[in-house]
């Protein structure tokens, strides 16, 4: 290479006269400062969680409104399409603000506000300089209580949405996610994360306004505010702005999902793919289950972080993948364990074999004390680092609040993790990571994948 003519060999570089050195012990860990917080419910039914974190002069805001399809089946239901148009136009006009006014007012206080929807909830996410909190809340109030859904905005966004859905559906991870959800949940509304283009095309302004009136409700919703402010004052500001947001009934929560049962994977063909998406799923445990902390550690041992069995096997040992992981997904009254890996077509079957092998090994060669200690420290430490920013803390708390939990659960979790025993991890590992508990999909080029997947078995070919 363009190196000097003389350089050391790799062997010479890899050793010094002194030799290997001892790895330092951990120092004394300073406790995180107690969080000053308020968790209360306003007269209109909106739950408000306000937390002081004054690291920077900003405020982060998250609003979660349960927004499920009241129908039991997504077949024939226009909810997903209407909800998607609503989320894309709720911030485009009110009696007093145009779309550009909304953007301008927020920008001048260093702010942003966005709305997104999924089968479970409508979520508003925003931030601003803390001096702009009143503006941020006023724009939010205006949208919640007075969104007008201007005709031209609805029409334009509808057209754009059709294109964006098409773009999204060209992404391999989206194709895999949709296939997995259908495989697991059929026509349950939870499986429908994205509407069809022709369903979007017929949504009218009146449909959206009717959905807003019926479903954008404070009762059952939760607002999280984290920032450089006193929690009491934050709650007063929220109450002043959103106290007048009212509506009949309670925001619609998702109906419980069918339990995921183990079974064959489904091979989904994607023409010309040079890589496959392996997506496995099994039943998990909700956060409030007393066995959850043990399952959290078992998941980390399996594939929940880089130093896991799955990553060490299929990436660091065999080079089959750049990205593999397992993670829980929490849903109303339950949870799912998900395993994801993306692998070259030639090694997809081999990677699936190793993925199943590591599942079986979780029960048969259960996590050791060293593995449990490593994951325990990681779980506690990463909770600390991921919530050390205002935005990280706000996002974490709004997700907890969606499960009915709050700051207390967050503060108490390190202790719950500390109390987990190796035996408890072994017990949940045997039950929840059994290969027979899993099902899922493989998305890739079926022509290339079929011979080896057929030989491996447990995969339904197209």
């Amino acid at each position, binding site marked *: 290479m363009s190196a*000097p003519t003389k350089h050391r060999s790799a062997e010479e570089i890899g050793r010094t006269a002194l030799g290997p050195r001892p790895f330092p012990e951990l120092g004394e860990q300073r406790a995180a400062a107690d969080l000053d917080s308020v968790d209360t419910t306003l007269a209109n039914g909106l739950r408000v969680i306000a937390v002081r974190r*004054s690291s920077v002069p900003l405020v982060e805001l998250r609003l979660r409104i349960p927004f499920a399809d009241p129908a039991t089946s997504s077949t024939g239901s226009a909810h997903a399409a209407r909800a998607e148009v609503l989320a894309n136009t709720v911030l485009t006009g009110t009696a007093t603000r145009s779309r550009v006014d909304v*953007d*301008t007012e927020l920008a001048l206080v*260093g702010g*942003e506000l966005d709305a997104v929807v999924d089968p479970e909830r409508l979520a508003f996410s925003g931030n601003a300089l803390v001096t702009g909190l009143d503006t941020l809340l006023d724009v939010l109030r205006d949208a919640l209580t007075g969104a007008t859904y201007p005709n031209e905005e609805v029409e*334009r966004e509808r057209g*754009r949405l059709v294109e964006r859905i098409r773009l999204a559906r060209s992404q391999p991870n989206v194709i895999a996610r949709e296939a997995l959800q259908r495989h697991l949940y059929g026509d349950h509304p939870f499986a429908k994360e994205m509407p069809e283009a022709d369903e979007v095309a017929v949504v009218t302004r009146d449909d959206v306004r009717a959905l807003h009136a019926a479903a954008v409700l404070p009762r059952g919703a939760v607002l999280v505010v984290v920032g450089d402010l006193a929690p009491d004052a934050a709650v007063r500001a929220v109450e002043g702005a959103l106290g007048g947001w009212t509506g009949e009934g309670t925001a619609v929560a998702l109906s419980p999902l069918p339990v995921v049962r183990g079974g064959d994977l489904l091979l989904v063909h994607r023409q010309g793919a040079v890589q496959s998406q392996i997506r496995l799923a099994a039943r998990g445990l909700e956060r409030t289950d007393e066995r959850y902390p043990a399952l959290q550690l078992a998941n980390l041992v399996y594939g929940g972080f880089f130093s896991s069995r799955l990553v060490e096997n299929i990436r*660091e040992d065999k080079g089959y993948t750049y990205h593999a992981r397992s993670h829980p997904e929490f849903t109303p009254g339950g949870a799912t364990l998900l395993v994801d890996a993306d692998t070259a077509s030639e090694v997809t079957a081999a990677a699936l074999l190793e993925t199943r092998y590591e599942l079986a090994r979780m029960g048969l060669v259960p996590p050791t004390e060293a593995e449990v200690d490593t994951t325990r420290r990681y779980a506690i430490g990463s909770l600390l*680092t991921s919530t050390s920013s205002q935005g990280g803390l706000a996002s974490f708390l709004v997700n907890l609040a969606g499960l009915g939990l709050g700051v207390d659960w967050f503060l108490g979790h390190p202790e719950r993790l500390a109390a987990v025993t190796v035996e408890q991890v072994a017990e949940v590992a045997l039950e929840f990571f059994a290969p027979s508990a899993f099902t899922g999909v493989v998305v890739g080029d079926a022509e290339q994948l079929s011979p080896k997947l057929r030989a491996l078995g447990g995969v339904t070919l197209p």
Partner: protein
Amino acid sequence: MALPELHRFTLPNGLRVVFAPDRSAPVVGVSVHYDVGFRSEPEGRTGFAHLFEHLMFQGSESLEKLAHFRHVQSSGGTFNGSTHPDYTDYYEVLPSAALERALFLEADRMRAPKITEENLRNQIDVVKEEIRLNVLNRPYGGFPWILLPPVLFQTFPNAHNGYGDFTDLENATVDDCAAFFDTYYAPGNAVLTVAGDFDHEEAKALVEKHFGDVPARPVPSRPSFAEAAPRGEVRAEHTDQHAPMPAIALGYRVPDPVNEVEGYLAYLVLAGVLTDGDGSRLQQRLVHRDGIVVDVGAGCGLFGPLEARDPDTFSITAIHPSEVTAEQVIAAVDEELLRLAEEGPTAQELAKVTARWVSTMHREHDRLTSRTLGLGSAELLFGRAELLYELPEKLSGITTDEVAAAAKALRPDSRAVLILNPASGGNE
């Protein structure tokens, strides 16, 4: 608000150190930036700087393969590394009790990484999977960061694919790695940054303890990668196997961010005026008024602003339906640029961009990972970590005339136009 505290010193072996203490949360970030990126790769070795980044995680004299990951994670921390045109960075963010461990890990691999044939072959496979995941198997993979440089630039360092071609990656040898390490990974060619919850004096003693005996080596003189801006409009087309609709990328040159930082920042403000928020010029025109694009974006640097030295890129990208032609999109962009060049932005437009930047900077600083990496790259590229904290004020100082001049300099007769076509013609 008072500027956050910053300290710097240099060890006798040449390692530059930046300290940014902040005790508001019990976490600490450690990063090492090496002054070598993919612009330094020789021909026939595309992707080598990035491949080498992977190898730096594969063990060192005191640490077996996989030990680095386990030690960081069992201390409750996270880690990563990334390769840019002009530098390669490595970092850990951990509970503050693990500060010494992070320093140990970075020092051990700076002093004596273990580079083996087995790990090299394994990481070539992993990198190929990374490229399949992010480029080959994905719609718009590598758009525009891999596809635009070969249109805008003529010379190999600036134009080539920083992820690398599979053939080049497969040809890499252990001896190439040894030469690369000895040349570029000298302590004098690196910046160590520590940010977050630590005591200045204690941390200084730990830095001296762990990095002090990394032997000094000569630091390579960095060649100039300067080249002339395109004379005329240079065009190229690319067929994307997976994209459902066409896209375009316009690439322009910007002033040297090191020697003309104010000039460069005018383009950063211009990017905000063009595409930041629903009220921005190109969002209004292309998305909301004409409705000819699905999405549009503009920005300095293909890895973000102030992430490379000269020559750097200003790009405007858009994805559009196949019923719309690239020429329609380009003509509308040119009209808006011309209007800005003639009339300049309004005072309110500048105020919006500035306020959003102040807020964005605070938000970046609040995430310890971005703060640590931002300070490290600013120190390495510009010799001034404090630039990060000064940006809001500098951006507020940019005038409407300067933004108008920047818009005027985005000339059709000195730019790259990349047209991305779907393999199916957009009618799948």
